[in-house]
């Protein structure tokens, strides 16, 4: 999955799960604020990532994520590790 595929795929499942318009998911947008995530929502974020991308991020992984760009970087890295 290349960078473009990652962006298209994650936009789709994140907007569907968290009921946010895809147009609001921009590389420099804040992930937590855009998706309106509270502590419980991070549990669901793990579930949808595992279901759609096949890996399970840790709480430690989320600490370094502020923007969607950070999130795409994490996904790229994790997919490369599991390839």
């Amino acid at each position, binding site marked *: 999955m290349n960078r473009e595929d990652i962006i298209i795929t994650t936009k789709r499942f994140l907007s569907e799960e968290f009921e946010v318009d895809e147009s609001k998911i921009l590389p420099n947008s804040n992930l937590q604020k855009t998706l309106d995530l509270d502590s*419980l929502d991070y549990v669901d974020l793990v*579930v949808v990532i595992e*279901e759609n991308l096949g890996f399970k991020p840790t709480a430690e992984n989320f600490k370094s994520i502020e923007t969607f760009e950070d999130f795409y970087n994490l996904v790229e890295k994790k997919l490369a590790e599991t390839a």
Partner: protein
Amino acid sequence: MENRVVITGIGLYSCIGNGKDEVLDSLRKGKSGIINDVQRKEFGYRSCLTGMVKDPDLKPFLSRRERIGMHQPAMFAFMSTKEALEQAKLDVEFLAKNETGIIYGNDSTAGAVINTVDKVRDRKDTALIGSGDIFQNMNCTVNMNLSTIYKLKGINISLSAACASGSHSIGMGYLLIKQGLQERIVCGGAQEINVFAMASFDGLGAFSVRHDQVAKASRPFDAGRDGLVPSGGAATVIIESMESALKRGVPILGEIIGYGFSSNGEHISNPNFDGQYRSLNMALQQAGINDSAVDYVNAHATSTIVGDGMEAQAINSVLGSKVPVSSTKSMTGHECWMAGASEVAYSLLMMENDFIAPNINFENPDEDSAKINVIPEYQEKNINCFLSNSFGFGGTNSSLIIKKFVK
């Protein structure tokens, strides 16, 4: 000084109607809400008969976070509570600022629990269950969800008392308001409808198998009955002190004047005359009325030989043979945890509109039902005061007496 306790809102999500207007029409027409749910046969049920309501689409009303912790009991209860609060002219802004409680009857979350367990079995990882399941799984699911959605700040407890849950929820709320401990309380009962919820009950062989005549399957008090028909949905009854209702200037639908309760202390499933007799008598004594003041009895009668028979004997002993009696379960089936609340709501609709809903399918009495006045067809009747019975497994009994409000 004790408060007088009145009812200012009712809401119904029932197999005989989504909302009061549809339900009223069904009660007048004697319309059955029973269907054949064929997947039950494939699942291993003896009986496919059930009352049925659809899972409501809550997306127009609630956010993702508000919906994610809801399975059927909470979903159904949201629908009935929304309607009841609208009638009582109570909105979130008012509820957030004016202490209001919730005592809701519910006694299972089988569908939600099994869905969750299936996820873990499949994925072998609890981290992949998701955040909403815990709030669907707990028996207090209705309370957790509705109290947060509506910003309720008063008493917040679920009431689990088998098929008397909904009735006891109103009774316990009545006592708290009467004693001046609460101004208003959201009461009610919810009952899930899915193959997981009723399998063990079906296993007792207690359900009707009259598959070729679904509308005739639930026949309380009739000699030809062959068992009850399970059902579900939700019913909400908003109760508050008379002072609060008058101050808010909202219409008052009725006044609760008596709550009788008892436990049989005997067999886990078999009903018992003494327990029902004591519950009925206690309600009458607490109401301070004599038996002739009761114009209508909404019976618990579920369409089982022993249960209907015991109740007919108890009604005859306490209230005599002339008081009109009907079991709306003849139309709805047995709404179980919801029934005590829905049957108060059905009876309030009858009282408001001057009629008795028929005990459909009552064609031939047996020895016990011949001793009471079962109403088989729609009857115009001015009801000033009614009694609603609810009895449950484990021998829990509840009787509520409600009358027209006169200041």
